[in-house]
């Protein structure tokens, strides 16, 4: 076995270190979910990308402030942009016959080219925040038809309403409200702009104040107040402010949803409606068309605990009255309604888990009805909100497609009752992820454990029984052979098409369990393009806990879920997503003896503390406080599974530098903002001993300082602060390697001793074997937000540093030989050094596009990258999460233990056949010659 490993190591060290992706492997070994986040109700719509376009795109501004255009045909992202501002606050509007969409997020109003996502104009509002944004739908001589003007409501020191030119984004006029009321929303009618604010006296609820402004001059025309103080206690009670409808509406309710009051903006009358009386209403939603040309009809959706129903109302503009036209019956379960307008007609589409039906706003007759086929991914989920496009021909709806957000976080398009595509948008909130083994491997490991713990005879019987049981799969395996052979020969290996999770020969199939900030967990199969195997809501599992940053830990067959605001631990089965009670777990857990207790450590009140045992008790064994008032901003321990193939580094002259290998290394990052210092402390987590300390000055500590540690080296990255008169600028990558001694063939204080302990390192107490640290700093062109190291089964393959570059939307694998701290500085390498593969030190590392793991994909918003070993020594599995989900396989020393796609199996077979034919021809000739030779002697 050792020989085998050595041969592999030789093979690994012989090949060149730079391994890029092959073009025929790209898009096959990797997968990418380009996500946008959960779409919001009022910022998601179908829209033509340019006037006269036949097809339309779905535009959405998500909870994560991502503006995206989604192709309704296949669900692919056409373009997306990340906007500023706090999550869930952005606004997105578009007008008919426009080639732009206009967004407002934070203090920035921007128009984007609807077809390709390029910026048309941007207007930054200083310290003000955009509260509302509307487009003016009128012809008044001031606006031009091909770019409609926008009206924006800003909340700053005093609220302002601005009309922005649709072509340039410059303000045409500004109206300032100095009354001290809270700005709420804007609404427009063909002739007037209505500015709606909330006037809140000291006691009681809010009065709604409506100010009408002239769209041409921005002067105040009129002002009136609606006595809503009995109902409106907070902003959420105002349900709807009709934007750009033919009849702008203002609807509000009270705290218990007992009453619905509707006002036609511009008039003072308020109509009052009561919800269906049989059950308390949980939620009221108003749906109305946002086009000026549409009929002034609207739909009110009543959601109760057990079902939902709706009423349709008609507005009479001349009399300024609102009357109920008809009701849609109560259906059990949850559902939602969407609005579509075509010409003047308004259609409402009712979407429930089982059925989609379309009605016209003018009469209650159902125009079309499609049963929804059950989907496993949408099982037990209900529609939350959506948008629809309806085709109506001669009084009946011939086709409908609805893009629906389901309660399990899937954004799906249902075309005539059939699922066209779905996007797992809940994964955009991912905050942590962990690898889990497949069930088969888990059971095998368990069986082997059983055999290991019993006596020889019973273990043997157990083993024979297991093999007999395995025989039942033998016929199926035999049957699969011809298919597999053919598949292998003609290159279309079944790798890509494996549907269900099962173990493959190379161990590429693994599960990744992802937890999101919204309290959702999902299991993804990385072997089949990151498909979600299961998807659960933690709120249903633990109803009274609000999960915000769940942390995951993998154990045998289950996942431990912990959260800051949650005392206990949840155990989730890693293959099914089912909750496991803690009793079942303890049966599995091998009991640790007293001597095997471990030291756990964590950040407690700004200090790193080590505790005896797994629980954080009151009295720590050691405490680490950084000096000079520095604040610990993070710590990175050496990975638990980090095999080291060789304890030394063989130099060119065959001498050995011994690596400083300590499984308990922790790299602590501390920063001091006032002096712009970042310090790094290398600790031994079992004793709390400080092994090494480095300080960097003139560091921009407000930027991320990622770090990683593996084997006997660690690495971190910094941003140089420009405020200082530093001689250089940009970003730095520092790599340090630890050796036992600076002298080759020397093991330092450990040299003579048989055993060593990090707690009592040598005969003299307290004398710690300090590592000899070699480090080098390199300039890089981009900021690094996260870094990690590849992992392989035995650690023979050279490691690769994986860094996330947020500005290029890339994940890059930097080969270890490029960042070797032993690169000679200021001189060319000697022949011996060159034979080790060392090159002359250059202060700048050019990030080669060939190192990009993501090639043409653009991976946005990555928060973490995790790596895992595969069944092959050469290959490491990589999974990145954050906004996007990306996964691939990397082979830092090339795939030396598996045949790649470049190996032509047919050619090999043909060569064998040709050789065989050659032998058949040559054999008689040789035989004759031999006989002749015998006779001639």
């Amino acid at each position, binding site marked *: 076995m050792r020989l085998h490993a050595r041969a592999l190591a030789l093979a690994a060290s012989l090949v060149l270190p730079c*391994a*890029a*992706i*092959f*073009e*025929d492997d*790209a898009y096959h070994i990797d997968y990418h979910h380009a996500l946008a986040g959960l779409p919001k109700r009022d910022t998601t719509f179908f829209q033509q990308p340019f006037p006269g376009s036949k097809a339309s795109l779905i535009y959405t501004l998500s909870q994560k402030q991502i503006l995206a255009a989604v192709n309704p045909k296949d669900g692919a992202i056409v*373009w*997306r*942009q990340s906007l500023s501002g706090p999550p869930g606050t952005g606004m997105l509007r578009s007008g008919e016959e426009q080639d732009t969409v206009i967004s407002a997020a934070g203090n920035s109003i921007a128009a984007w*080219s609807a077809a*390709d*996502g*390029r*910026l*048309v104009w*941007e207007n*930054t509002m200083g310290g003000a925040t955009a509260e509302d944004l509307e487009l003016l739908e009128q012809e008044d001589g001031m606006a031009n038809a091909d770019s409609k003007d926008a009206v924006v409501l800003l909340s700053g020191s005093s609220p302002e309403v601005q009309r922005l030119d649709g072509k*340039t984004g*410059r303000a045409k006029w500004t109206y300032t409200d100095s009354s001290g009321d809270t700005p709420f929303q804007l609404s427009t009618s063909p002739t007037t702009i209505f500015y709606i604010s909330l006037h809140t006296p000291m006691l009681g609820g809010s009065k709604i104040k409506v100010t009408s402004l002239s769209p041409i001059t921005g002067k105040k025309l009129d002002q009136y107040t609606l006595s809503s103080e009995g109902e409106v206690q907070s902003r959420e009670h105002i349900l709807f402010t009709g934007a750009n409808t033919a009849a702008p509406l203002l609807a509000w309710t009270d705290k218990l949803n007992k009453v619905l009051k509707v006002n036609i903006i511009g008039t003072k009358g308020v109509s009052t409606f009561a919800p269906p009386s049989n059950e308390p209403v949980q939620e009221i939603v108003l749906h109305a068309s946002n086009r000026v040309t549409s009929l002034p009809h609207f739909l009110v959706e009543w959601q109760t605990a057990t079902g939902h129903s709706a009423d349709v109302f008609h507005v009479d503009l001349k009399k300024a009255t609102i009357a109920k036209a008809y009701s849609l019956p109560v259906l059990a379960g949850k559902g939602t309604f969407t609005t579509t307008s075509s010409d003047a007609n308004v259609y409402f589409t009712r979407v429930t888990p089982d059925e989609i039906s379309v009605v016209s706003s003018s009469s209650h007759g159902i125009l079309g009805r499609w049963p929804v086929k059950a989907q496993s991914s949408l099982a037990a989920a209900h529609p939350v909100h959506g948008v629809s496009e309806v085709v109506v021909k001669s009084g009946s709806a011939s086709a409908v497609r609805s893009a629906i957000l389901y309660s399990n976080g899937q954004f799906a398009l249902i075309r005539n009752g059939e699922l066209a595509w779905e996007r797992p948008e809940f994964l955009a909130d991912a905050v942590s992820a962990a690898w889990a083994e497949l069930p088969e491997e888990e059971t095998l490991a368990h069986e082997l454990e059983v055999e290991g713990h019993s006596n020889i005879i019973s273990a043997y019987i157990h083993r024979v029984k297991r093999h007999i049981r395995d025989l039942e799969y033998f016929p199926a395996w035999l049957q699969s052979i011809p298919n597999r052979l053919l598949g292998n020969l003609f290159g279309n290996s079944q790798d890509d098409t494996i549907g269900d999770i099962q173990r493959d020969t190379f161990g590429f199939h693994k599960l990744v369990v992802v937890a999101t900030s919204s309290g959702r967990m999902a299991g993804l199969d990385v072997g089949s393009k990151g498909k979600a195997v299961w998807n659960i809501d933690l709120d249903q599992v633990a109803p009274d806990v609000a999960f915000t940053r769940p942390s995951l830990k993998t154990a045998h067959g289950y996942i431990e879920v912990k959260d800051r605001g949650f005392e206990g631990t949840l155990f989730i089965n890693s293959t099914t997503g089912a909750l496991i009670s803690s009793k079942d777990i303890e049966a599995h857990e091998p009991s640790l003896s007293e001597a095997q207790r471990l030291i756990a450590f964590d950040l407690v009140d700004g200090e790193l503390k080590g505790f005896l045992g797994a629980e954080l008790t009151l009295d720590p064994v050691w405490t680490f406080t950084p000096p000079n008032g520095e604040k610990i901003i993070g710590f990175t321990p050496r990975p638990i599974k980090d095999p080291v193939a060789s304890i030394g580094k063989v130099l060119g002259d065959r001498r050995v530098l011994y690596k400083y290998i300590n499984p308990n290394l922790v790299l602590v990052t501390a920063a001091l903002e006032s002096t712009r210092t970042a310090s790094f402390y290398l600790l031994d987590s079992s004793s709390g001993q400080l092994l090494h300390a480095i300080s960097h000055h003139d560091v*921009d500590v*407000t*930027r991320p300082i990622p770090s990683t540690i593996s084997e006997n080296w660690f690495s971190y990255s910094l*941003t140089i*602060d*420009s*405020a200082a008169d*530093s*001689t*250089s*600028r*940009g970003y730095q990558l520092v790599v340090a390697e630890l050796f036992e001694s600076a002298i080759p063939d020397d093991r330092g204080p450990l040299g003579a001793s048989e055993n060593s302990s990090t707690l009592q390192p040598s005969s003299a107490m307290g004398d710690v074997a300090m590592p000899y640290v070699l480090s080098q700093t*390199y*300039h*890089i*062109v*981009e*900021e690094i937000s996260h870094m990690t190291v590849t992992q392989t089964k035995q650690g023979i393959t050279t490691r690769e540093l994986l860094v996330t570059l947020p*500005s*290029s*939307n890339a994940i890059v694998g930097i080969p270890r030989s490029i960042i070797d701290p032993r690169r000679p500085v200021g001189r060319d390498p000697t022949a011996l050094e060159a034979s080790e593969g060392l090159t002359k030190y*250059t*202060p*700048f590392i050019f990030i080669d*596009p*060939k190192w*990009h793991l993501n*090639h*043409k994909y*653009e991976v*946005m918003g990555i928060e973490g990258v995790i790596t895992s070993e595969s069944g092959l020594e050469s290959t490491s599995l990589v999974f990145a999460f954050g906004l996007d989900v990306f996964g691939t396989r990397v082979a830092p020393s090339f795939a030396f233990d598996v045949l*790649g*796609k*470049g190996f*032509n199996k047919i*050619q090999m077979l043909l060569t064998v056949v040709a050789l065989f034919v050659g032998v058949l021809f040559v054999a008689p000739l040789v035989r004759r010659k031999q006989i002749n030779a015998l006779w001639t002697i």
Partner: protein
Amino acid sequence: MRTSQYIIASLASAASAARFVLHIPNGPVVNPSTFPSSTHATLQSSGPPIVAHLTRSNTFNFYNVTPGSYYASVHCRDFAFEPLRIDVSLEETVEGSGEKKEMIRAWQTFVGNEWDNKGESKGEGGNGLVIEAKVMGGKSFFQEREGFSPLSFLKNPMILMALFSMVLIFGMPYLVENMDPETKAEFEEMQKKGVLGSATGSERPNPAQQLQNFDLAAWMAGKTTDSGPSSRGQSPNPASKKRT
């Protein structure tokens, strides 16, 4: 063209702090209109970088840039750009007048060098300055897979060596036989002293047969004393024994 004029005009009219434009020129190889919309430019100095998105007119517009020295870079999926140093400063328009105006200066810069090591100037002026962002080249992400070709097979030094020795083995006897008697005698004389002849005695006069029986492996391993045919039974690589 109208749009870019317009942008400059709009820049000139807005108030306070520096504004400038990074523009990607339309080159013979590079068509900036085909760039993905994720292309953006950043200005880094201290704290979060200032980001500008690619506009329809292939520009990046920066507004409200406070005085300072910035590292400007353009990030594009398909192309690499030259990094720039952009300095924004407040300067008196006329000396002693007290009226200050923004001045923007741009240079090429080199990563891994001192910040003061500036390259060629890329522009200098007041608000609304247009600086050209130069494309350095396309990014190629993929590695070529080396397919099988007979030519690359022939380029292998081992194969070349084998071919050469084959030519020697099969070609030499015929050459020798076609020689005129005098040179042939001379050659045989030489052979007796030389490497090839050393393995043979006088009982094998036929040079062709002798050459055909020549043990290349044994010869390459430095074997000189033994007679040719009997060496076949031995290990072709005696050096391998020493290693174990």
